């Protein structure tokens, strides 16, 4: 029944290999390369659809497909195996679906690039890794995907490898993720040995879930084992999902091509941390401490990144910080026990944020061509060079606008449902917390503000593009606009699968909740995680959050539409605040001083201080001493260095003989 699951990651892998090996020398044709890349992913999407539908009609909701053994040493037994359950089924739909659209888009966007084949090969390889991450039935296969997506992200950030800034950003992303991986592996080790102490030696997710209850009561380092393990895992999640304190790589990752930002740095890879918590939800549910930390870190990240989003002028950077902030929302959801809401927001975010990124790509693409045409080297990503593009690029504008409405959480767009569920749980969950709720509400207000700031600066008002290039800005071709339209459509209606009970007038029910219940319900029930409150409270909160979003939009409208001189006045009034926010709170600089530079200094000390001065100094000193002695015995010198060597060996052999004959 489910024994062809491996086909899902296989197709993109095949695509990556074909384009990687044959693309440059043999295929060459962009259309063919693009068709192979997109087609392979589309095939994978079709297989995913088949299994998704099959799972919907199946009464058993968890299926494993082991294709080979990986290694077995002692107690450790690892297979190459896949797991399909509602959670992974939903994820593969998002990954392959959004992935296919972005591949299609890339054909237009990357047209004429020298490394076209390389790009598609990496992109396919990325989807392969992401699918391994999502489908892996044990923590090590997940880790293969986990590192694999990191690698592809590295390669794609550094796609323009001749640019130093791209290379640096790629390296930073990888190393920072490595810090997170440290946590992931540590969590895995702890879990493996902790379960092993109860006689259960496994890293298989299904078996972990079944046996997690054994761990209750186990202590390590004065804390419960589950707390320690899940905190370690969460460190891994902060790396991959760009949360405090490991978020600074994501904005730099915008050095890569824009579709990459849409696919990897918005819709899929960065959500891996959220998915991982969902996968191990039972362990997190067992530790209220960890869940609080998760929610708190998520909330703080949400608001912190939003403040930086206020002051950025690079359109992609605004979206990057917005992504960091939205991921914070997802972690809040996971932290307050609203697992379904977290995954829900992951999905709707994939739609609207991918649409926003691709829309920004469409704008950048058009700007770039216009500037190039006019032989100008103005920044094609700086919103201060844009404005008034609404008329020139109507489809891009419309889809971008819809996505802005969705991310701000205006009623009946997808973001409204998912965000509202998170807010509700933060407020009413047994693991919820009013302070976190307040922080998230403020972050929601800020989101609406900076997104509409971005929308206005780009599409409304006077066009500020250099006059020479002004008239060369055109709407993008269909391969670019089609994915935009599809994603905008999903961003509009995608939320309807999760209608909250309080406003479910037509009694369609919360489809997503029911679908994901087999994965989350168990732990929520066992550890009494639920949101309780009256329907009227829920509706009041809902109205309130809509009002908050409208207020944010209103502020942006006043500042960037009605009186465009206001932002300048504001900046002039609070120059320090603006500088600090504009410079991202100087987090990069702080990290550089604290960690990077000090480690580098240690390295210099190890090498030049210790190896060269101390060790070699001593050795050379002895050598000189020997040299001085040997000058006394000059008559034995034959001048040939090699003779010494032989003499030494001979000497040893003679000594050996003497010893034995004794």
């Amino acid at each position, binding site marked *: 029944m489910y024994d062809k699951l491996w086909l899902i990651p296989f197709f993109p892998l095949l695509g990556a290999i074909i384009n990687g090996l044959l693309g440059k020398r043999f295929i060459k044709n962009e259309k063919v390369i693009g068709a192979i890349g997109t087609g392979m992913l589309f095939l994978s999407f079709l297989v995913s659809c088949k299994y998704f539908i099959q799972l919907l009609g199946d009464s058993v909701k968890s299926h494993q497909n082991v294709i080979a053994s990986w290694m077995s040493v002692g107690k450790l037994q690892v297979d190459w195996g896949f797991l399909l359950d509602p959670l992974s089924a939903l994820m593969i739909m998002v990954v392959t679906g959004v992935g296919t659209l972005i591949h299609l888009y890339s054909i237009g966007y990357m047209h004429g690039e020298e490394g076209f084949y390389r790009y598609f090969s990496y992109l396919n390889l990325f989807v392969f890794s992401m699918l391994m991450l999502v489908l892996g039935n044990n923590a090590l296969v997940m880790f293969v995907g*986990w590192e694999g997506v990191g690698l592809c992200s590295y390669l794609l950030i550094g796609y323009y*490898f001749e640019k130093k800034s791209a290379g640096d950003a790629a*390296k930073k992303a990888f190393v920072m993720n490595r810090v997170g991986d440290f946590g992931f592996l540590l969590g895995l080790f702890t879990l493996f040995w902790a379960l092993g102490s109860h006689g259960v030696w496994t890293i298989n997710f299904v078996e972990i879930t079944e046996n997690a209850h054994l761990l209750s009561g186990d202590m390590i380092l004065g804390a419960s084992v589950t707390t320690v393990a899940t905190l370690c895992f969460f460190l891994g999640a902060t790396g991959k999902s760009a949360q405090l304190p490991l978020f600074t790589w994501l904005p730099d990752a915008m050095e890569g091509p824009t579709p990459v930002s849409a696919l990897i740095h918005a819709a899929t890879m960065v959500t891996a941390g959220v998915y991982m918590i969902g996968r191990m939800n039972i362990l997190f549910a067992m530790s209220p401490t960890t869940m609080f930390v998760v929610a708190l870190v998520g909330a703080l990240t949400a608001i912190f990144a939003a403040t930086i989003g206020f002051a950025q002028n690079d359109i992609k950077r605004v979206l990057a910080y917005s992504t960091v902030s939205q991921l914070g929302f997802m972690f809040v959801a996971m932290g307050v026990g609203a697992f379904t809401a977290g995954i829900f927001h992951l999905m709707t975010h994939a739609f609207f944020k991918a649409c926003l990124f691709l829309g920004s790509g469409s704008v950048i693409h058009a700007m770039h061509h216009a500037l190039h045409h006019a032989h100008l080297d103005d920044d094609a990503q700086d919103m201060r060079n844009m404005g008034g593009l609404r008329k020139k690029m109507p489809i891009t504008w419309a889809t971008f606008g819809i996505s802005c409405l969705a991310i701000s959480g205006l009623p009946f767009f997808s973001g409204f449902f998912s965000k509202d569920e998170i807010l509700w749980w933060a407020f009413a969950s047994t693991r919820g917390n009013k302070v976190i709720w307040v922080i998230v509400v403020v972050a929601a207000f800020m989101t609406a503000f900076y997104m509409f700031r971005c929308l206005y600066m780009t599409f409304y008002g006077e066009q500020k593009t250099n006059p020479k290039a002004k008239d060369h800005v055109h709407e993008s071709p269909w391969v670019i606009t089609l994915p935009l339209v599809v994603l905008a459509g999903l961003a509009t209606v995608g939320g309807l699968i999760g209608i909250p009970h309080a406003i479910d007038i037509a009694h369609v029910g919360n489809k997503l909740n029911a679908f994901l219940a087999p994965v989350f319900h168990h732990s929520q029930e066992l550890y009494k995680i639920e949101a309780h409150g009256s329907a009227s409270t829920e509706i009041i909160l809902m109205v309130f959050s809509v009002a908050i979003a409208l207020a944010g939009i209103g502020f942006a409208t006043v500042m960037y539409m009605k009186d465009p001189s206001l932002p300048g006045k504001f900046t002039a009034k609070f120059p320090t605040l603006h500088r600090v926010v504009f410079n991202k709170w100087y987090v990069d600089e702080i990290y550089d001083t604290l960690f990077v530079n000090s480690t580098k200094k240690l*390295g210099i000390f190890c090498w030049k201080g*210790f*190896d060269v001065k101390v060790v070699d100094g001593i050795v050379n000193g002895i050598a000189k001493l020997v040299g001085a002695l040997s000058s006394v015995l000059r008559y034995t010198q034959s001048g040939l260095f090699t003779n010494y060597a032989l003499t030494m*060996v001979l000497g040893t052999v003679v000594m050996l003989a003497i010893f034995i004959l004794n």
Partner: protein
Amino acid sequence: MTVLTSLPQFPWLSLLIVLPLVGALLCLMHSKRPADCRALSLATSLAVFGVALYLFICHGQGEGRWLLYEDVSWIERFGARYVLAMDGIALLMVLLTSFMQVSAVLLAWRVERHVSSFFALLLLLEAGLMGIFLAYDLVLFYLFWEVALIPMFFLISVWGGANRRQAALKFFLYTLVGSFFMLIAIIALYQIHGAQSGVYSFVIGDLLQTQLTAAQEGWLFAGFMAAFIVKSPLVPFHTWLTDALTESPAAGSLDLTGLLLKTGIYGLIRVAFPLFPNATENFLPILAILALIGLFHAAWSAYHQDDIKRLLAYSSISHLGLVVLGLAAWQFTAWEGSILLMVSHGITTGGLFVLVALIQERTGTRSMKELGGLWGQAPCLGFLFLLFSLASLGLPGLANFSGEILVLLGTFQQHPLWAVIALLGVVFAAAYILRLVQGVLWGPAYKERSVPDLTLREWIILLPMAILVVWMGVYPEPFLAPMHGAVETLLAGGLP
């Protein structure tokens, strides 16, 4: 310990040592015809590889520890016997040696000075290494230990880089001083055992029964450790390696990093640990600390190297630190990981050394200041460089990861703190390896020089390595299976 010597069987193990020796002699006899020497060495190393492969496939599994055992009386007067014994660990090392040797010969194809001597030395080195990995008699072991030293010394001092003389001398003195202590310890152990039992023997199996006082055991252990730690090399006895690897000719670096470095660790496993279980037990924490210091020290130092060969030398020290840590943890999973990592490190770093040699041939430099942009100029070379680099930083699904995860997982059970510290060190591996990748592959290319992509010969060297790197990452089982028995015996017999 069961000894499988029921039937007189074909002396496969001796063949592994004799074949390269014969090849070396033949090379010297044909010194006037370099082309013949090349072909001859290639044929010899392929034959040895064939034998090793045969043993791996047909004798790779067996009951008890020994897969093959050869025992012939040798210098009867001293009780020195010609004993060769192969367990699963030795089998892997033999396989690695013969495999790397083929690559080394192919890599040395373009050597032009003293061709016959070069290949003769290369083959002699192989014979020495095979001997070290197979000998089960201490005199024999010591003999091969020294035999392997001499060709390496000449390879560096005659065919090496600008500072070859100094580097070769340093290499030679370090190892010689180390092995001198080992020699004394061997003789002392022999005397003590003889006086105790009346049977004078150098065979390790016999010496295992020696009753030693704590002080005796400590001193003898120290003697052996002097040789093995220098060879491994653990900080602070490592600076010979960075010099030797940097100055050595390409084929020499390949053998040095891939094989010769492993002899020290192999000596720990095969000789020092089993002979002195109590001293070992006391020493393990110190060993772990030395290993961890090496791991970090070398990783931090590697980050600042401009010469890519020197960077790789430091990276080797760092990796071997992890190997030693796994042994010090004295845990089954960790041991298997260490041994697997030893093999995979040989291949990944070996591959990188090959690529560095090719880059130096093409550009005339190894300095990262003068390199860059190779990704665009020579895509195949660049791809393989990236592949081996990623394997080296421990990307899951590639060779080193399998070993590393086992080492860390196993160590974590016995000594969580060690594993946590070592895991931190792995973070730094990413930093220096990616700096290497950035310095060599990314960045603008040097337009004034063209860098041709891989030739057929170079593909033949690198492709098998690349396949192995993926294979050992995806399915290391065939390499793990032979060593289960040996590791179990060693762990059980070593510590009470």
